[in-house]
C-alpha cells in the first residue's frame, strides 16, 4: 500500500542577503531597493493538504514559479517541509534535472552502479540490472571511459536509463526532460509510458494538456504556492486554459 500524505505543508526558501565587508562601508551611500533579497523569503508552498493514494495519477499544472517543482522535490524528500507534516510510503523514483550528480572521473559503468545505489538499490539488485541499463542507454563502448568526456545527451541517456530501470512504486516526473536525440527520445517516451502505467502512484508536472489527459486521472492547478483547483483533468485544464486565454 503506497501513499503520500501532506498535512499543512509549507515550504519557505530563505534568501540570504549576501553581506560583504565592503557593504558595511558602501551601504550608507546606496539607495536600498525593495527586492526579494531584502524581503528574505520566498513562500514556495502554502498550507498544502493533500493525500495521494495507490492508483492516483496526479497531474500538476500552473504557470512558472507556481511551486510545481518545489512540490515534487518536497515529496521526493530532497527539500524538507518548513512547517507541516509529510509522510510517504513507497519506493520513489524521480525524473528531473537529469544531467547532474555524477562522479566525473569514474567510468559510465561505475556511475550506473553508484546512481543505482543512490536510488535505493543494493549492490546485488543493481548488478542484476546493469546489463539491461547499459543496453538501453546504447552508450556501448563509451561506458568504459570516464564520464567527463560525455556530451550532455550522453549524460541524459545514462541518467534516464538508470532512473527508469529501478521499478519504483511512486514516480515523480517533471516533464522538462528531453533525453538525447530523436531516436532515443522515441524509446525514452515508450519506456516512460510503460513506467507511468506500471507505478502505483504518478505525480506528473506538465505543460502539455494532452499528456495530462492521457496519463492522469486527477489534476491540481497550482498558483503562487497554493492549490487553486483540484479535480478531473478535463475540467481543471479547461478552467486553466480559459484563464490564460482571457489574459
Amino acid at each position, binding site marked *: 500500500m503506497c501513499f503520500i500524505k501532506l498535512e499543512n505543508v509549507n515550504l519557505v526558501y530563505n534568501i540570504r542577503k549576501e553581506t560583504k565587508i565592503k557593504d558595511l562601508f558602501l551601504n550608507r551611500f546606496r539607495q536600498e531597493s525593495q527586492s526579494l533579497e531584502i524581503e528574505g523569503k520566498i513562500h514556495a508552498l502554502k498550507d498544502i493538504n493533500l493525500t495521494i493514494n495507490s492508483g492516483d495519477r496526479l497531474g500538476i499544472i500552473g504557470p512558472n514559479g507556481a511551486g510545481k517543482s518545489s512540490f515534487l522535490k518536497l515529496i521526493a524528500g*530532497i527539500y524538507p517541509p518548513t512547517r507541516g507534516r509529510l509522510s510517504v510510503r513507497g519506493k520513489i523514483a524521480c525524473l528531473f534535472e537529469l544531467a547532474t550528480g555524477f562522479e566525473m572521473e569514474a567510468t559510465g559503468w561505475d556511475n550506473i552502479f553508484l546512481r543505482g*545505489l543512490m536510488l535505493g538499490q543494493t549492490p546485488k539488485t543493481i548488478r542484476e540490472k546493469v546489463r539491461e541499463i547499459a543496453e538501453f542507454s546504447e552508450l556501448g563502448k563509451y561506458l568504459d571511459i570516464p564520464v567527463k568526456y560525455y556530451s550532455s545527451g550522453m549524460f541524459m541517456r545514462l541518467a534516464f536509463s538508470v532512473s527508469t530501470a529501478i521499478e519504483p512504486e511512486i514516480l515523480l516526473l517533471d516533464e522538462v526532460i528531453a533525453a538525447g536525440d530523436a531516436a532515443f527520445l522515441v524509446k525514452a517516451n515508450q519506456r516512460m509510458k510503460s513506467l507511468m502505467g506500471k507505478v502505483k502512484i504518478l505525480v506528473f508536472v506538465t505543460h502539455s494538456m494532452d499528456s495530462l489527459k492521457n496519463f492522469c486521472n486527477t489534476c491540481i492547478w497550482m498558483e503562487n504556492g497554493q492549490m487553486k483547483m483540484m479535480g478531473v483533468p478535463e475540467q481543471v485544464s479547461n478552467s486553466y486554459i480559459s484563464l490564460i486565454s482571457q489574459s
Partner: protein
Amino acid sequence: MMNFIKSIFQGRYILGSLIKQDLKNKYRNSFLGFAWSLITPLGLVLIIGIVFSKLLGQPIRTFIPYLFSGLIPWLYIAQCAEGGTGAFLAAEGYIKQTQTPIEVFPVRVAVVAFVQMLLSLAAFFLTYLLLDVNQFSFKMVLLIPALFIWLVLGIALSVGSAIAHTLVRDYGPIQSLILQGLFYATPIMYPAEILKDKNFAWIYQWNPFYYLMEVIRRPLMGQKVPDLIHWEVSLLFVGAIFFLSVFALEAIGRKIVFRI
C-alpha cells in the same frame, strides 16, 4: 546519535562505492598508481632525514621515527578538517537529486583520509624496521585502540567543518589558519620537553591535540605506553566534538540543502 549511525548504515553501499572511487581517483592516470602512497612518505623521510642530520646534526635513527610518527597523524587531521569543508558543496548534485543520507558525504572524506594514513603508517613501519628493528615491541598493540579514537576524531572534524563551512563560507580560511597555528603549537616536529624547559608547558598541557598525538605516537614508536591522562583527555575531547558535530548535523539535517 542513533540517527547518524542509522543513516550511515542505510548509505553504507553508497559510502563504500564513493570511497572506492576516491581512492581510485587519487592515482588515476599515474604509472605507479597505488605505490605512490608508500613512495611519497619514504621520499619525504629521505629528504628530511638528510637535511636534519647533515645541517642540524640531529641523530637520524631517533629523529626520523619521531618526526614521522607525528607528521603522518597530523596530515590526517588536516586532510579531514580541510576536506570536510567541501564535503556537502561537492556533493550538491547528489544531495539535490537523490535521497542519499547527507551524513555519508563528510564521513567519506574522513574514511578516505584514514585509509591513506594507514598506507603511510605502513611506510613508516617499513622505514622503522630498517632504522631500528630493536624498538619493535608488544606495546605497538595499543595502536589499535589509538587508531579507533583517531578514526572517530577524523569523522568528527570532517562533519563539523562540513556543517560550519556550508553555513558560513568564511569558516574554511579561518580553519586553515588555526590548523597552521596548531601545527606549531603542538609538539609534532619537536619534543614536548623543549616547551617545558622554556616554561611554556601550558602550551601543550592545554592543547587536546598533544594528548591525541601521544596516544598514537607512543604505540608507533614502541618505547613507552601512553599515560592514563593521555587516553582520558583524548577520549573526552573526541567524544565531545563527535557528539557536538553529530548533534549539529541532526539538528540541521536536510535543511542544509538550502545552503548549498
